């Protein structure tokens, strides 16, 4: 089952006429030199063509709404439908970002309360909701750290420490902020090597970026010591919130000593992943960085029913690192996170961490008992854990990719593979709190069945997937012979 391109449905002169003005008024005053002469390469299709095509395309996807999706570090949990429905109410959707705040008190009240809830659950001092994704949240954090040091005349601090297991966004962000990256090794237990850290810090240390629990699926046991080392050296601590789901409501980054945190609301607060976005990377700050928050932030004047809300700008936060989006970040995503937070409440937030951790440890135990090797067998799992298929690779030449592709045939999305880079044939597995025991058991059954298949005939795995719309795709050829657009489109659009 594959589906043609929308351009292949296109016929000259066809239109879904109801959806746009029927005619183009003359626009004679625009000089010819500025006018378009060549056709626009868009498909010419009927509404029915379009509805059918995109309905069929949607059916080619795995998604949380259809499949278990234990993609490590991505927190593919259930997306409650109320979040979408309520954020899509016409009053919210139709409001212009520059409409007067007198006509936006509904939105602003939601955002203000979201700031407050996120502040409380992370143990920080304040939250700015404006960053549009995790990576922009990271940028925000490091930019604030730089601004902090510079505001103190301490501008030689240009090194960001990053554990070698970190997400790629961490070093990439440090560089975007004009910093150098110093990698810190991981010890055998999966913790940051504190001795190496002590050696690495210096008067050039701007800060450290940490995910905790780390991408290795374990909670940094020495986090308080790490904080002491870095703060002692004059650096600040940045918390990468990618794994916040593991500790939500249970442990707070602010209590660990972090000065800034970003949250992936599209993970921990269950806003949709949307096939790659939009995300939302709200940042929480401690007292050292409060003055540097990105704008706009929502402020409140007055109390109770008489309270009014407004945007805080550079007039209110003069040392702000400034605006990072044209308007107010991904407001619609923030509304979804707000609805989710209200549906959970305080107790529900704590349950997120508890049941994500329960599911993860249960699945880890079951897989270990089924004969799979854990990367850190002596550790508790956090909300995720790592299986290494190194032995399988050596014994049968079956790779993590092969097992991942075969899982797709069994109706399970594959875990994250080959990340973190330092674990060979790595399977990073995150079940999330919203999956049931039966689903986890079925996943274990599939893993066992696949392993049996591999032992019987490894080509079964090498040929996988066979039950999907396409079989294994040639990614090398894709990169070599770049085909990034359908070439007849312009012609068809004539």
């Amino acid at each position, binding site marked *: 089952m594959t589906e043609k391109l929308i*351009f292949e449905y296109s016929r000259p002169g066809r239109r879904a006429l109801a959806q746009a003005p029927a005619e183009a008024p003359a626009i004679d005053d625009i000089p010819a030199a500025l006018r378009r002469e060549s056709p626009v390469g868009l498909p010419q299709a009927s509404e029915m063509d379009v509805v059918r095509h995109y309905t069929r395309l949607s059916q080619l996807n795995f998604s949380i709404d259809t499949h278990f999706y234990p993609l490590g570090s991505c927190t593919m949990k259930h997306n409650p439908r109320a979040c979408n429905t309520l954020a899509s109410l016409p009053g919210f959707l139709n409001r212009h970002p520059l409409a007067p705040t007198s006509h936006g008190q509904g939105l602003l009240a939601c955002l203000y309360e979201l700031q407050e809830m996120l502040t409380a659950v992370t143990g920080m001092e304040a939250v700015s909701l404006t960053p549009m994704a995790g990576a922009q949240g990271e940028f925000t954090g490091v930019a604030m750290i730089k601004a902090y040091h510079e505001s103190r005349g301490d501008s030689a601090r240009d090194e960001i420490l990053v554990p070698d297991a970190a997400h790629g966004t961490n070093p990439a962000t440090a560089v975007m902020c004009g910093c150098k990256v110093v990698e810190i090794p991981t010890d055998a237990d999966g913790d940051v090597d504190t001795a190496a850290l002590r050696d690495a810090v210096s008067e050039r240390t701007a800060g450290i970026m940490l995910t905790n629990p780390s991408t290795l699926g374990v909670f940094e046991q020495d986090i308080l010591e790490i904080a002491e080392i870095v703060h002692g050296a004059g650096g600040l601590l940045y918390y990468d919130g990618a794994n916040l789901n593991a500790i939500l409501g249970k442990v707070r980054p602010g209590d660990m000593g972090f000065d800034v945190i970003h949250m992936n609301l599209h993970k921990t607060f269950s806003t949709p992943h949307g096939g790659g976005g939009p995300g939302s990377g709200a940042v929480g700050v401690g007292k050292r960085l409060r003055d540097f928050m990105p704008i706009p932030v929502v402020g409140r004047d007055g109390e109770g029913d008489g309270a009014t809300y407004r945007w805080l700008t550079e007039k209110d936060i003069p040392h702000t690192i400034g605006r990072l989006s044209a308007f107010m970040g991904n407001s619609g995503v923030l509304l979804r996170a707000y609805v989710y937070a209200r549906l959970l409440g305080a107790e529900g937030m704590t349950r997120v961490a508890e049941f994500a951790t329960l599911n993860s440890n249960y699945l880890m135990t079951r897989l270990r008992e089924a004969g799979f090797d854990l990367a850190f067998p002596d550790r508790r799992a956090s909300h995720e854990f790592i299986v290494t298929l190194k032995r399988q690779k050596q014994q049968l030449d079956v790779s993590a990719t092969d097992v991942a592709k075969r899982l797709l045939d069994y109706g399970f999305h594959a875990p994250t593979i080959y990340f973190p880079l330092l674990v060979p044939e790595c399977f990073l597995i995150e079940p999330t709190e919203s999956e049931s025991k039966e689903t986890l058991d079925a996943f274990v059954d599939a893993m066992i069945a696949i392993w049996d298949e591999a032992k019987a005939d490894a080509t079964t795995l090498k040929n996988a997937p066979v039950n999907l719309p396409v079989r294994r795709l040639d990614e090398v050829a894709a990169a070599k012979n770049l085909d990034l657009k359908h070439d007849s489109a312009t012609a068809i659009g004539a």
Partner: protein
Amino acid sequence: MPFIPHTEDDIQSMLATIGVDTIDDLFDEIDPSLRDVSLDTIPARASEQAVTRLMGERAARDAGGLCFIGAGAYEHHIPAAVWELTTRGEFYSAYTPYQPEASQGTLQVVYEYQTMMTGLTGMDVANASLYDGASALAEAVLMAVRANRKSKASRILMPASVHPFYRQVAHNICANQGITFEAIDYDRTTGRIDTHALERWAGEDVTALVIPQPNFFGVLEEVDTLTDWAQSNGALAIGVVNPLSLAVLKEPGRWGTGEGADIVVGEGQPLGAPLASGGPYFGILCCRKKHVRQMPGRVVGRTQDMDGRNGYVLTLQPREQHIRRSKATSNICTNQGLLVTAATIHMSLLGAQGLENTAATCIANTRSLVAKLTEIDGVESVFDGTAFHETVLRLPADAGAVLNILAERGVFGGLALADFYDGLDNTVLVCATETKTEADLDIYAQALRAVLAEQAEAA
């Protein structure tokens, strides 16, 4: 428990399998001092019913008003099919398509989007989207610095006629990398880039020139001349466009006498994203083929499977942070997948003709609005450059005050520019899209006439 399926039996059996007594035991590697958390200030859970009612009331508070504000976000009709399809669970709740065989829906949508964007802009390549128009401009600047190997200065010429917020965002994101932005003033008569101000940089080491089309004032820039100027001075030409305008305006791929603009960015919102108080929108980024490996963000390519069937994958990943880490072209990870899905469906439904009719109707409506408003004593156009669908008007009174009164009467009359530009006191940037009827325009004109009369009387 909301969104947690565990029964008491499940919990006990799972704990037994793990070999611990309580869920809390699973957190025993964490320092006890960290595990005593109070969430007193967070409200208790509310039922879906209660939250539905709350949100309904709050949304109702924000509803209404006849909107003539543009300034980077535009009210357009979005066909009902767009978001009914986009929010299908299989699009809405899918992750980034790292397992392509399980993500052909999302991947093909992005490939179609890329094709449409190159069609619209006339450029060679489009990425899978960035966060929004403003941050896309910042990424384009960073990309230009990487791509223009001849330039050592990391110097960007940034016209004042670029959206003020875009200029701020570009600065805030790029400043840490030693990039300097040189302001280029606008011509007080035409509202276009002041070419004299530009000439001052001829012969200097300039990395790129940013060319807005239409510009923030709604005025059309002389894009051919500007593109040629940039390229003949060793600079890259970065277009910042409203994608809707490209249905009727010359596409950046044909700007100038050479091979067109080098990089084009823009705010995708007019292509199917609701206003939604500012987001989520999506940033467009296109470029010429020779710059493709400097492009930030995700890209989808067509390839084949083991049986020779066509399929789609994320490609050029070696540029990206998850492979290249500190040497990546950007730290960008997330794109705006759902918005790209909406835009692709939106463009499929409208087609070229629908987009053209929409753009032309916006232009005609704004011309008509300006005609009605400038009939009012003391109201006049500020610039004589040809406009797209926005115009700056000067009022015979304090613009902020007038707009506030209009808003109370249900008309959002535009954006006051006094805060953004010296010398534009009492001016308003107004916009009338295809959503406005003749009657709407008259409502605005009558309301403004009344307010100005009251102001004059009070004065």
